[in-house]
């Protein structure tokens, strides 16, 4: 897998979520994703960026354009050094929330992506990665 471009952005405020959404949209358009696919990855990015901010106490997102043979795709990796998630299965369940959200963020982002990876260590932080192929 070849990384064609990569850009890291800070997620420290709700304005940063808007900037991240716009950056993801730009990358998705540049990659040639259709409107529905653009909307799906931008929405997934918005959910995960909000998780990073609300539950992780802020962090970063890494936007990468990838190429794997004939396929190209967009990978987004959200990282925080927050409290972490003790029970990932529970966190992925729709409707489960430890905050005051609707509990759709993680599960929803997973459904909106082709590939989804989450690693979290309580006390150290969380890393969520999603990928959408063209």
């Amino acid at each position, binding site marked *: 897998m070849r990384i064609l471009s990569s850009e890291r952005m800070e997620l420290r405020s*709700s304005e940063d979520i808007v900037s991240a*959404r*716009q950056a993801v949209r730009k990358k998705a358009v540049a990659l040639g994703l259709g409107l529905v696919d653009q909307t*799906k990855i*931008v*929405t997934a990015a918005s959910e995960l960026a909000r998780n990073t901010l609300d539950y992780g106490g802020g962090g970063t997102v890494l936007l990468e354009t990838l190429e794997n043979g004939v396929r190209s795709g967009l990978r987004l990796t959200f990282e925080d050094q927050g409290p972490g998630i003790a029970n990932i299965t529970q966190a992925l369940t*729709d409707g489960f929330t430890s905050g005051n959200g*609707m509990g*759709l963020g993680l599960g*929803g982002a997973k459904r909106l992506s082709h590939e989804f990876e989450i690693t979290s260590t309580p006390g150290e932080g969380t890393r969520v990665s999603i990928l959408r192929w063209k």
Partner: protein
Amino acid sequence: MERIPILKMGRFLLVTIQVDMHDRLALALQDDLTSQIVKWKARGVLIDISALEMVDSFIGRMLGTIASMARLLDSDTVVVGMQPSVAITLVELGLSLKGIRTALDVEKGMAALQDAAAGSDGNLSGADRDENSQF
């Protein structure tokens, strides 16, 4: 602070969301709308989201909250103009916006609000008549 404008059209309020909303802007809209509903005794609120390229769970929840608050203040809410790609994404996200009335465009949304207002006015006069007939 930046604000989303609320227009008054007769008995109804009209909001067109044209910017990519950050969270505080969305919360300010909730506050502004509820006070405007009371101030103008508005019978309905029309929210045009045709310019929104994305609706995530935060914005979805905000729309639901506005509809519930408006209901408590005797006002109906119609969300109009959702882009097809947004509708597809919302369903996959798991957000069906239950309890939010939608219409395809502003014209249909206005007609729905007018019907709803006429219906409740009709009920009201019906109730008045019942009350009178008791005396």
